[in-house]
């Protein structure tokens, strides 16, 4: 689903994750929150695919459900043609060697009771990799790789700064030599100066180990710097998927256009006109009919509220879910005002 010839490393097919809502005195089932709603995309070996969108759009849920840290409501995730959702607990546990996750909060994602060496070595212990001395050697190697002093391996997480903790998380994620790493807002909680260091580290590691990243973020500047392709999510659905340069130069979906217009741009000649969307994001428990974005879309037409737009390829590698895309490949679409 990106116009690339090679086979995808991960293929997400019609993934849905709904959260039940119980309300009232007798805890009756209300409308479920449709955090992810019929989402499909492919992730290719060695690439960085970013997923962007506002808070609550379901991007983190995609990453977590894909790794089965949350159980899906529907759909499939194929990792090298193996359906992850068809695996039993033990098989899935074994599969975790190939895919890891780095969470947003460097303070919350490390067990405060464990020493750093144990945090990094624990996956190796769980998967019975190497002897004790080999594991300790690997821990020291990994700490050096992520730019930490191996002599600090006996310390606890609270003795490190936020940036250092995120490096520990990266070392832990790398310990089993995974192919895929989900970076769930991995730099959002860090200071800007530290963010750039961690992003550079992630890029270096990708080169060094041939990693594939699913990079979940709401920071479009960071995504521009790191990603090869970008998927834009709105209300649990993918509304646009494209190569990073095409998407930033010429967004095809009005929502993407609005997001890009909000990026601060220091050079006046490069500034876009700011598009301020009207109203609030609708509830994912009760999304609007037709196109989920039509109630806020500055380009909405009468039929947008009736028909759900198909997620279709408008040019090689460019996918959009819009009845009236802003661009069709290289040609600007004309809008009826």
């Amino acid at each position, binding site marked *: 689903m990106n116009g690339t010839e090679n086979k995808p490393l991960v293929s997400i097919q019609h993934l849905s994750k709904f959260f039940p809502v119980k309300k009232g005195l007798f805890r009756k089932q209300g409308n479920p929150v449709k955090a992810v709603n019929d989402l499909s995309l492919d992730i290719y070996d060695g690439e960085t695919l970013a997923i962007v969108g506002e808070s609550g759009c379901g991007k983190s849920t995609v990453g977590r459900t894909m790794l089965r840290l949350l159980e899906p409501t529907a759909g499939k995730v194929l990792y090298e043609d193996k359906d992850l959702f068809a695996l039993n607990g033990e098989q899935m*546990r074994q*599969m975790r060697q190939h895919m890891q996750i780095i969470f947003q909060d460097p303070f919350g994602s490390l*067990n405060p009771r464990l020493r750093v060496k144990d945090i990094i070595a624990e996956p190796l212990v769980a998967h019975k990799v190497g002897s004790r001395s080999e594991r300790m050697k690997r821990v020291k190697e990994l700490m050096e790789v992520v730019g930490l002093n191996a002599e600090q391996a006996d310390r606890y997480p609270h003795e490190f700064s936020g940036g250092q903790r995120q490096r520990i998380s990266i070392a832990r994620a790398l310990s089993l030599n995974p192919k895929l790493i989900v970076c769930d807002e991995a730099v959002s909680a860090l200071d800007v100066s530290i963010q750039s260091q961690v992003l550079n580290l992630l890029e270096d590691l990708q080169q060094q180990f041939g990693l594939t990243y699913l990079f979940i973020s709401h920071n479009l500047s960071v995504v521009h710097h790191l990603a090869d392709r970008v998927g834009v999510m709105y209300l649990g659905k993918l509304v646009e998927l494209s190569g990073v340069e095409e998407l930033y130069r010429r967004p095809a979906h009005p929502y993407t256009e609005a997001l890009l217009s909000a990026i601060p741009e220091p050079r006046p000649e490069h500034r876009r006109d700011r598009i301020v969307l009207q109203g609030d994001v609708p509830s994912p428990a009760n999304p609007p009919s037709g196109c989920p974005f039509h109630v806020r879309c500055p380009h909405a037409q009468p039929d947008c509220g009736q028909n759900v737009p198909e997620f279709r390829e408008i040019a090689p590698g460019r996918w959009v879910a819009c009845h009236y895309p802003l661009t069709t490949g290289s040609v600007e679409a004309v809008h009826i005002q």
Partner: protein
Amino acid sequence: MTTFIIRRLLESLVTLLLVSMIIFLAIRLLPGDPIQTVIAQSDLSGMSAEKIAELRHQYGLDKPIYLQYVDWLGGVLHGDLGTSIFTNTPVADEIFRRLPITFTVGIWAILLGTVVGIPLGVISANRRGKKIDHLIVFLTNIGITVPVFWLGLILMLVFGLYLRWVPVMGYTSPFEDLVMHLRQLAMPVICLAIYPMAAAARQTRSSMLEVLHQDYVRTARAKGLKENVVIYKHALKNGLIPVITTIGLSIPVTVGGSTVIETVFNIPGMGRLAVNAVQSQDYAYVQGIILIIALMVLLTNLLVDLAYGWADPRIRYR
């Protein structure tokens, strides 16, 4: 750490001093006169006023209250908790003879409460909203509110009189007959364990529900750890601090409950001694027993504080 322990022990001494003052005054404010009680119990109703005054003098009850306190405190510092005006025996001897019995029942109760309560809380949190969770929550609510004496009587009726599985009452030393000792302790221990068990289960459930949503628990799953390792190593150990506090707080409740349980099950422990001493206004015994209980509670609190450091390496003692 050493500085912390020394400081806490010094604070405990001050607390003990205050407790001793309060109990010394409180028991003397109770209506009635211990000397008159001795006379009534010993059929010495014809005793002359001189003899009564002599008896008062013998036990130092004719001195001003502050001097009585100073004399008693001086004795305590030398390991003498005073002499009973009823049995004319040293209080310390009787207390230390009965203390191991109360201790045995109490420790078994706390252990049982903890060993059963914590896993119940874990199961409940793991199955949140399921039938087993509702059942455990319901049972823990009952466990916290059920009166110990009533539960004791019900257990006696069912397991002692109807089913005849265990003896109804009494106490046998484990060195005399271990099987009989365990059979006799079964019901009192279960009675005393109900509160710590329910409290531990409730607090564990609450802590676990908080911890299970932490990213480091998700990270543990993502690492490919087995579920029981995720639950017990990553979740439970990080949710232990409030549970440790709850267990610590349930120890004084257990000590309080032992007075009722020892009376109901006719166990010759410190609890029953305390009840008898209060009823007969035996000042020396009441003061001695409460001082020992206060000491136990203070030491328990110190152990709880030290356990926090084991449970969470971020805690530093200053």
